[in-house]
C-alpha cells in the first residue's frame, strides 16, 4: 500500500444526484472511522459484491480516493484489517463537525473527478 493506493467506497443511489456525490459518502456516519476497501487487495467489482451480497447493503456504485488525497486532508489511515482483511479506516478522530463536512466534501470531489470505478448493470 502506498500513496497511490485507491481506497474504495460504496455509494447509495440517494447520494448521487445529477452525477454529484454527497460529501456524506466520505464522512463517517457513526464514530470516527470511515470504512474503505484496500484497492490493492480487491477490485471495485469484488467490493461491490462483498458489500451487497455478504454485508447485504445497497450500493449504486464504487468510488475511490487515494491515500495521498486522504493525507492531504490531514487525516490518518489505519490498516486495521477488521472486520475483513481488505478493510482500511480513514481516521476522523479529533476533527469537529464542520471540519468533517469540509474534509469529506473535498474527498468526495476527488472521487467524483476520478469517476465511478464500478457500477452494476
Amino acid at each position: 500500500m502506498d500513496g497511490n493506493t485507491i481506497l474504495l467506497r460504496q455509494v447509495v443511489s440517494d447520494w448521487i444526484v445529477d452525477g454529484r456525490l454527497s460529501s456524506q459518502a466520505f464522512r463517517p456516519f457513526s464514530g470516527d472511522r470511515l470504512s474503505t476497501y484496500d484497492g490493492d487487495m480487491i477490485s471495485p467489482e469484488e467490493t461491490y459484491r462483498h458489500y451487497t451480497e455478504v454485508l447485504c447493503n445497497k450500493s449504486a456504485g464504487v468510488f475511490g480516493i487515494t491515500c495521498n488525497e486522504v493525507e492531504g486532508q490531514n487525516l490518518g489511515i489505519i490498516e486495521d484489517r477488521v472486520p475483513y482483511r481488505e478493510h482500511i479506516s480513514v481516521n476522523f478522530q479529533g476533527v469537529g463537525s464542520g471540519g468533517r463536512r469540509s474534509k469529506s466534501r473535498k474527498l468526495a470531489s476527488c472521487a467524483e473527478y476520478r469517476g465511478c470505478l464500478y457500477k452494476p448493470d
Partner: protein
Amino acid sequence: MDIASEVFIEENPERERAPRNFKKNYYLSMTDLTGGSTVVEFTISNRIPQQVFESGEEKSIEIAIDDFIDYWGNDLEEDKFKKRGARIKPHLRLFGQSLLDGEWMEFSSNNKKSIYDQEIRHKLIEKSTEYNDEIEIYGEVQELDNKSETFRLHYMEKGRERRVNVTLGADYKDSIHTALKEDNQKVFVRGTGNFKDQKLQKIEKIDDFQLLDPRDIQFKLNDLKNLGDGWFENTGKAPSAEGLTKLSELFDAYYTEDRNLPYIYPTPEGNLELEWSITDADVILGIDIDSLIGDLLIIYDDKDIQYDLNLNTSSDWKKLNDILKGVY
C-alpha cells in the same frame, strides 16, 4: 336532514349555515303500514311548527326528499348527484344489499316517485365510486401510443412503482416527445385524474406539463417521500413526509436562486443535507427536518465559515439567497 341542511344553504344564499336546531327540531315517524306489498308511510314533522314557514325550512326538506327519491331512482342530474351522493354514499353498499331479483323498493313523495332494485343499486355504486379530481404527479414518460393518443407515465407513490395512462395534450406534444427521448428525464404533470375506488385510473386532461431539471427542488423533496427506513446500510432513517412538504412550501415561497439549484441528499439520521457550488467555494446546508433549523458551512480552499439558519423565518431565507449570490 344533512341533505336538507345543504339545500337550505343553497336556497338561502345569504345564510352561511342552516339554523342551529334545524336537524334537531325535525323527526321522522312511521304513520301507516299497509298489508300486501308492504307500504310504509313516513312523515317528517317539526317540534316547533310555527317557525317553519318563516324560515324556509319546510321547503328545504321537501326539496331534499325529492332529491333523495331521484337519487335512489338514479334519476338525479349530475351536479346534484355528486353533492347529494357524497352524503348518501357511505350507506349505499348496505342499502338494499339483500334485494333479490324481481324485488324492488318504491319511493314516493307528493312530487316524485322512484324504483330501486339491484340493477339500479349497482349503477349507483359504480357512479359513486368513480370521480374526477385534479392531480399532480412527478414521474417519467415511458411509452407513447400514437394510435390512442396516450402516453404512459411512470411514477412512485408511497415507495411503490405506479403507471398511469395519460391523454396526450396538443399543447404539450413536443415536450412529451422530448421527455420520451431523454434517459431519466423527470417530468411534472398536473391535470384531471379519473379515480375509481380512490385509485387513479387515468389522466384525462393535462393542464400543465414541465420537463424538470434533475435538481428540481419540488421534485426531489417529493421523491424523498418514497424513501423507506433502512435505505443506508440497513439503518438509514427516512425523512418525515410532513417536514418535506413544509420545506417544499418554504422553498417555493422564499428561494430565489433558480439558476443555482441545490443537490439534495438524505442523511442517515432522517434529515437532509443540501449542497451547492458557488464561486470559489462549496456550500453544505444541514437541515433538521422537524425543526427546519439549518447549519450552513461555506467551504473555501483555506477556510470554512459557518452560519446558523432558521428556515422558518423569511430573513434567514434572504441570508441563504445572498450567500449563494456571493453578496453576504
